[in-house]
């Protein structure tokens, strides 16, 4: 049963400490929402877990299925089953979506998918997310709108089927229709769309968001409030309701 265990994680950018002791365990079958004001360190947590070179782990530990995640290179983490849907997906000139996805699937599965199978999976995935099939031949994320980039991230989530998915503000910048399409994709991945497909109980989701809006579509089991680089309150879905009504003011004041 896949588990991501974060213990007393401290992360700095340059000399500045951003995360100051994060403790969090995400087990398969669970969806955790991390909510917090801007600048509280939510995205730092996401990128530090993925292994972005800008972030330095100063202390603490992270285990994925008991393996030391922090010892792994960026690509090793992904192959171990960690996925980060990025807030700002990167444009990669000259590398087509199709080529990119095929390379990623090959790397994660350890063998190249059969061409026909890949084409079918890609088409199914794109249809489900209302992505124009022509995007397969376009350069990765290049010239995509914000919504198109986010759909493309969820397409990768569904194709790569990680053990633990971190979704960093996947809802930001989406209109209501796009939010619904993207949320349905996340629910398919969680195996909660009623189809019996998806990875279901084998996967855990860490959903990072500023707004409660997406939580109406993607129901969390746990809600954590992030402020000033650590988790300051935890609860069930009802905590999101409270944040919806009261905002983050109480937390930002307390931590200031």
């Amino acid at each position, binding site marked *: 049963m896949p588990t991501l265990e974060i213990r007393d994680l401290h992360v700095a950018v340059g000399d500045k400490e951003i995360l100051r002791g994060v403790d969090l365990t995400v087990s398969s079958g669970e969806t955790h929402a991390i909510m917090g004001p801007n600048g509280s360190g939510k995205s730092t947590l996401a990128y530090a877990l993925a*292994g*972005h070179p800008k972030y330095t782990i100063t202390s603490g530990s992270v285990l994925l299925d008991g393996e030391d995640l922090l010892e792994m*290179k*960026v690509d090793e983490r*992904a192959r171990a089953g960690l996925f980060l849907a990025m807030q700002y997906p990167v444009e*990669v000139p*000259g590398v087509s979506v199709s080529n990119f996805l095929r*390379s*990623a699937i090959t790397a994660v599965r350890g063998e190249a998918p059969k061409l026909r199978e890949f084409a079918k999976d890609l088409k199914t995935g794109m249809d489900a997310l209302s992505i124009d099939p022509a995007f397969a031949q376009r350069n990765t994320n290049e010239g995509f709108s914000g919504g198109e980039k986010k759909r493309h991230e969820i397409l*990768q989530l569904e194709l790569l089927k990680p053990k633990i998915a971190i979704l960093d503000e996947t809802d930001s910048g989406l209109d209501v229709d796009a939010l619904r399409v993207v949320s349905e994709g996340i629910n398919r991945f969680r195996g909660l769309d009623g189809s019996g497909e998806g990875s279901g109980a084998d996967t855990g989701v860490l959903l990072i968001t500023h707004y409660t809006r997406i939580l109406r579509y993607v129901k969390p089991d746990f809600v954590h409030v992030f402020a000033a680089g650590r988790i300051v309150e935890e609860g069930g879905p009802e905590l999101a309701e409270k944040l919806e009504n009261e905002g983050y003011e109480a937390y930002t004041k307390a931590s200031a």
Partner: protein
Amino acid sequence: MGLETKPLSTLHERSSYNVADFAVPTGREEEWRFTPLSRLKGLHNGTAAASGTVDVTVDAAPEVTVETVGRDDARVGKAYVPADRISAQAYASFEKATVVTVPREAVASRPTVITLRGSGGGAAYGHIVVKVEAMAEAVVVLDHSGSAVYADNVEFVVGDGATLKVVSLQDWDDDAVHVSHHHAQLAKDATFRSFVVTLGGDLVRLSPSVAYTAPGGDADLTGLYFVDAGQHLEHRLLVEHTVPNCRSNVTYKGALQGEDAHAVWIGDVIIRAEAEGTDTYELNRNLILTDGARADSVPNLEILTGEVAGAGHASASGRLDDEHIFYLQARGIPFEEARRLVIHGFFAQLLEKIEVEEIRERVLAAVEAELAR
């Protein structure tokens, strides 16, 4: 432009068939300052003995005629007058010229491949004329390989409404020195496509230039180079718009890796006062893959009329973008593979421009081989 800087247009004024009209370069001249003269093996100062051999063979399309002619042939040197010392030296020294003619309204059914194979020794000099008559169409490949100290001039004469597509592949051995001028002369409504690929050689200095004799000419010059340790690969482009309503587009991209890998790109575009309605753009990008490599990139655009349709230039040299690599790695793709994908992507749009599939595959394979080093 500082007080010391001469207008671009004055730099390209000198031209002559006579070697003596050009002083021996010292390396301080604007047009020679990037070139390591000591590695030219005497091509620039008259000390290179013409004792080497570069064999020229032509595999021509059936519609195309090929002749080997003497120095006195009227078609030789008609479109182009040498513009620097080595070019004049080559013009003064070659013995036989190759003339490829695509007759009026003929459409060549397959590429005409001119193979230039160096077999060592001292210097060799050459001259090629490719003449595409009115309304004709052809693809010509110049395929350079082997070991040589070679200076030559190539004239592309593109007639009214004609189309010429050229691929020039510099795939020399590690010790080769090649200094070459490629001059294209475009008549009314002529189309010229040049694709230059420079990979091998100790020193390659290639100067493609374009001139227009009537309105409606359209030139597209694309280049790809991969510079390894110790190599000096230099491309000097000159597009001179002297008549109205012509178009030019220049896109050169290179990657560099290894100690003392040196790329030079000079892109000169002049729009003369009479060349109203000109549309031009030039771009150079360099991807520096390791420490110790150096790219010099100098775009120059001189506009002497206010009535242009478009004119611009861009140049950038930089390293692999860490964010590109991170994104690919974050999807499980190992670093080496991610790097290969990004570099491949850097060249991808250029490679798509090579219409001859066989050549595209070969260039692609050559790039892959460079990446595997």
